[in-house]
C-alpha cells in the first residue's frame, strides 16, 4: 500500500494506482478526455494534469502512479489555468456547432469546457479540413469534431482487434481514421460502434434513423411494429438519469406505445425461436459427426452478433461453415412479423414496417444486408439504437420517470428468461444449453438457478464443459459425451478462440462470440459512458429479469409452441430454412 495526500486528505491506496484512480477513491473527479479504463494511459490530452509537490511541471494524473508521501493538489490556480488552455486550444481547432451536434447533451468536451468556465474559444485557430464519412449504414464520422484523443483507436485495435482506425498523416494534418484518410467502407470495419461508444465528442456517431421512424409512424397507411432487444431494458433508464442497471421494461413499453407504434413486441420472442432452431442445428451437427461420421463443421459458432459475422467474413472466411445458419433474433423477428403475424392479422406485409431498438450499431448494417428479405419483404426496416430511442422519447416531452408500466403485445411479445440473457456475454450459450440439455436428457439443467456460471461474467474468454448423462433414447449417442464450449466477447477475444482452435481443432463443440465487451449490454449503441462497473450492473439487471420470469427456458414459451403448430411446423423445417436461416460470404 502507498500513503499519500490529495487535496489535504491522507489516503492509502494499492501500489501502482494512478493519481486519477486514487483521487476518485476520495470523491475527487479529475477531468479526462483520452483516458480509457483498463487500457494503457496515452497521456495524449493532458486535461487530467495535477500539481505534485516537488515536481517541476504538472503531471498527467491518468499516467502517473502514486508514490509514498506524494502530495497532490488537483485544483490549484496553476492546474485550472493549464486545463483552460488545453480546452481553449482544443476548441480553437474544433469544427463543430454544439447546437446542431448529436452529442450536445452528453459531450465530454462541452461538459469540461462549461465546468472550467469557457463559453467561447479564446483563439480563432486555423481549423483542419473536416471530412464526413457516410459510407456505412451504421456510423457517421466527422473529423472536424475529432480532438485526436485516440480512444477510438484503442477500442478498434485493442478491444476489437480490427484495426480500422489509426492516425494518418502527421502534425496539424493528422486525421484519426481509416487508411490514407479514406472512409470506413474502404477498410475492414465491422461496424460494431465501439469507437462511437468511447468517443468523447461528436466525431463518430451512429447514423440516425429517427426521422425514418417518425415518417413511418406518421403514415396512416402503415402498421408500424417495434421490437426491443433484451439489452435495452437494462440500459434505457440511463438516458433518464436512472442508476445503471435499473430495469425499465414496463416504462419502456408504455413509452413506445405513446410514441405511436401500433404494436410493441419483443426481440426476446425471436431469441426463444433462435434457441429452438440453433439448439436443433447443434444437435443435428453433432449427430452427423458422431453417428454418421460426416465431415461436418464443428465447433458451431453463434450467429446473433452482426459485428462478429462481419469479423468472420473479413478475417476468418475458412470458418464460415462453422457459423450457425440461424439469422439473428432481430432478423428472425422481422421475417416472422411479415409472414406469420401479417397472416394472423390479415395485414398486407407491404404495409407493415418493422422497427428495432437495438444496443448495437452493426444491427443497422445487418438489417440492410441484401439477403435479409427472404419473405419477399425486408425483414427489418429501421433500426434505432438505445440512445436514439432515448432521444425520441425526450423529444416528445414524455416524462419517462413517471410512466406506468406496460406489457408487451401478443403474440410476438411473450418470452422466457432464457431470451433475456441473450444480452449478456455467455447468455446465448446458457440459454441454448438450458434447452439442449433438457431435450437430450429429459431433465432440467442441474445447476443452481439454471445458470452456467463458468461462462458468465466479464472475463474476456471463458471455457466450460458438461458431461451428458442419462440421455433419452433418441439422443443416446450423446451418452457420456463431454460437451465443450467457449465464450468470447470483444473481438480481440474471438481472435483467442481461433488461436486455440488452430492448436486443437477439436477443442470445442459450441462457441459463443459477441462483438462487444460484456455482450449486447455493452453494445456500441448503448447510453454513454459504459465502463466495467456499468457493464456489471446491466448484466446483473438482466439476470434479475431472467430469474423473475415464470418461464425460464425457450422451449417452454407457449407462443413458440404455437408458432410451430400454426406456421413453422418443425425446427429446421422447410419454412424455417426459407425464412429464419441464412448464409455468409467471404469479404
Amino acid at each position, binding site marked *: 500500500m502507498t500513503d499519500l495526500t490529495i487535496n489535504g486528505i491522507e489516503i492509502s491506496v494499492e501500489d501502482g494506482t494512478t493519481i486519477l484512480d486514487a483521487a476518485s477513491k476520495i470523491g475527487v473527479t479529475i477531468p479526462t478526455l483520452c483516458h480509457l479504463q483498463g487500457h494503457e494511459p496515452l497521456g495524449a490530452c493532458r486535461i487530467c494534469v495535477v500539481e505534485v509537490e516537488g515536481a517541476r511541471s504538472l503531471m498527467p494524473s491518468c499516467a502517473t502512479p502514486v508514490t509514498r508521501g506524494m502530495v497532490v493538489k488537483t485544483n490549484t490556480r496553476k492546474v485550472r489555468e493549464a486545463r483552460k488552455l488545453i480546452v481553449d486550444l482544443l476548441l480553437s481547432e474544433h469544427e463543430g456547432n454544439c447546437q446542431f451536434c448529436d452529442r450536445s447533451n452528453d459531450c465530454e468536451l462541452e461538459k469540461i469546457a462549461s465546468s472550467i468556465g469557457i463559453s467561447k474559444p479564446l483563439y480563432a485557430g486555423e481549423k483542419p479540413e473536416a471530412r464526413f464519412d457516410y459510407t456505412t449504414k451504421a456510423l457517421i464520422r466527422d473529423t472536424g469534431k475529432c480532438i485526436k484523443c485516440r480512444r477510438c483507436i484503442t477500442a478498434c*485495435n485493442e478491444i476489437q482487434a480490427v*484495426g480500422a*482506425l*489509426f492516425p*494518418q498523416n502527421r502534425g496539424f494534418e493528422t486525421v484519426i481514421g*481509416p*487508411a*490514407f484518410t479514406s472512409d470506413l467502407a474502404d*477498410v*475492414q470495419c465491422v461496424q460494431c460502434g465501439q469507437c462511437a461508444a468511447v468517443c468523447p465528442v461528436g466525431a463518430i456517431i451512429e447514423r440516425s434513423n429517427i426521422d425514418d421512424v417518425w415518417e413511418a409512424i406518421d403514415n396512416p397507411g402503415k402498421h408500424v411494429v417495434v421490437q426491443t432487444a433484451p439489452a435495452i431494458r437494462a440500459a434505457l433508464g440511463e438516458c433518464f438519469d436512472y442508476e445503471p442497471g435499473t430495469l425499465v421494461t414496463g416504462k419502456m413499453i408504455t413509452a413506445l406505445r405513446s410514441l405511436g407504434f401500433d404494436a410493441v413486441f419483443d426481440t426476446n420472442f425471436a431469441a426463444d425461436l433462435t434457441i429452438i432452431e440453433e439448439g436443433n442445428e447443434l444437435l443435428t451437427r453433432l449427430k452427423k459427426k458422431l453417428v454418421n461420421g460426416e465431415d461436418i463443421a464443428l465447433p458451431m459458432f453463434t450467429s446473433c452478433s452482426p459485428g462478429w459475422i462481419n469479423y468472420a467474413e473479413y478475417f476468418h472466411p475458412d470458418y464460415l461453415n462453422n457459423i450457425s445458419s440461424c439469422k439473428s433474433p432481430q432478423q428472425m423477428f422481422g421475417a416472422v412479423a411479415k409472414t406469420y403475424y401479417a397472416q394472423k392479422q390479415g395485414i398486407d406485409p407491404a404495409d407493415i414496417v418493422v422497427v428495432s431498438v437495438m444496443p448495437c450499431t452493426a444491427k443497422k448494417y445487418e438489417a440492410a444486408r441484401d439477403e435479409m428479405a427472404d419473405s419477399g419483404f425486408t425483414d427489418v426496416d429501421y433500426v434505432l439504437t438505445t440512445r436514439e430511442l432515448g432521444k425520441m422519447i425526450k423529444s416528445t416531452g414524455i416524462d419517462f420517470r413517471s410512466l406506468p408500466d406496460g406489457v408487451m403485445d401478443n403474440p410476438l411479445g411473450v418470452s422466457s428468461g432464457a431470451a433475456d440473457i441473450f444480452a449478456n456475454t455467455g447468455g446465448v450459450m446458457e440459454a441454448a444449453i438450458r434447452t439442449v440439455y433438457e431435450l437430450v436428457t429429459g431433465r432440467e439443467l442441474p445447476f443452481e438457478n439454471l445458470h452456467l456460471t463458468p461462462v458468465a461474467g466479464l472475463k474476456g474468454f471463458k471455457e466450460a464443459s458438461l458431461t451428458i448423462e442419462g440421455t433419452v433414447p433418441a439422443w443416446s449417442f450423446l451418452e457420456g459425451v463431454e460437451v465443450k464450449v467457449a465464450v468470447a466477447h470483444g473481438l480481440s477475444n474471438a481472435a483467442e478462440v481461433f488461436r486455440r482452435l488452430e492448436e486443437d481443432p477439436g477443442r470445442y463443440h459450441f462457441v459463443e462470440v459477441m462483438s462487444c465487451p460484456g455482450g449486447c449490454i455493452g453494445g456500441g449503441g448503448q447510453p454513454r459512458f459504459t465502463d466495467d462497473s456499468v457493464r456489471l450492473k446491466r448484466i446483473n439487471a438482466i439476470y434479475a429479469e431472467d430469474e423473475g420470469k415464470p418461464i425460464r427456458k425457450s422451449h417452454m414459451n407457449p407462443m413458440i409452441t404455437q408458432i410451430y403448430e400454426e406456421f413453422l411446423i418443425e425446427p429446421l423445417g422447410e419454412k424455417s430454412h426459407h425464412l429464419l436461416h441464412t448464409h455468409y460470404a467471404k469479404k
Partner: protein
Amino acid sequence: MVDAQIPTREPTDEEITKQTEIIVGELIGRKGALIPILQTLQELFGYLPETALKRTGELMKISYSEVAGVVSFYKYFSIVPRGKYLIRVCLGTSCYVRGGKEVLESLKNNLGIDIDETTEDRLFSLKVGRCFGACGLAPVIMINDDIYRRVKPSKVGEILQSYRVQEDTDD
C-alpha cells in the same frame, strides 16, 4: 533518397504480391521491420502500391490502416506511381523570391496535377524540393538529371514539350 528505377511497364497485382512476400520474408525478423520493408518496396516499385501495402499488413499481422498511418507519416513515401520524368521545383529562399512559386503554378497548370501527383499518362511527377545549390541562377527546376536555370513561367510549356516530343519519337 534512392531514386527509383522507372519500370518499363506496370507490374501486375500477382507480381506485386510475390515481390512483397519476398521482401517482407527477408526483413520481417528485424526490429522495427516495417519502415525498412516500406523503403525496399518503394525502391522496387517506385512507389507503394496498395496491393503491396495490404499484403505487408497481412504478413506482419497489422491492419492496413496502421500501415497507412506509417506511410502517410513520412513525406518520403509515395502511394502514387512515379512518372517517367520527375520534376522537382526548388522552393529554397532564393528560388522562392525569384519566382519559383510562379514557376510551380505554371507547371501545375500545364500538367494538370498538384504537388506529389503524377500525370495520367505516367510521364511526369511533380515535387517540390529543397535547394539544389544553384541559387545564383534561380529559379531552378530539375527534370530527372537535367537542371533548368532561370526558368520563366512562360517557358515551362516549351520545356515540357521537349520531353513529350522525345517520348513520341522514342515510341
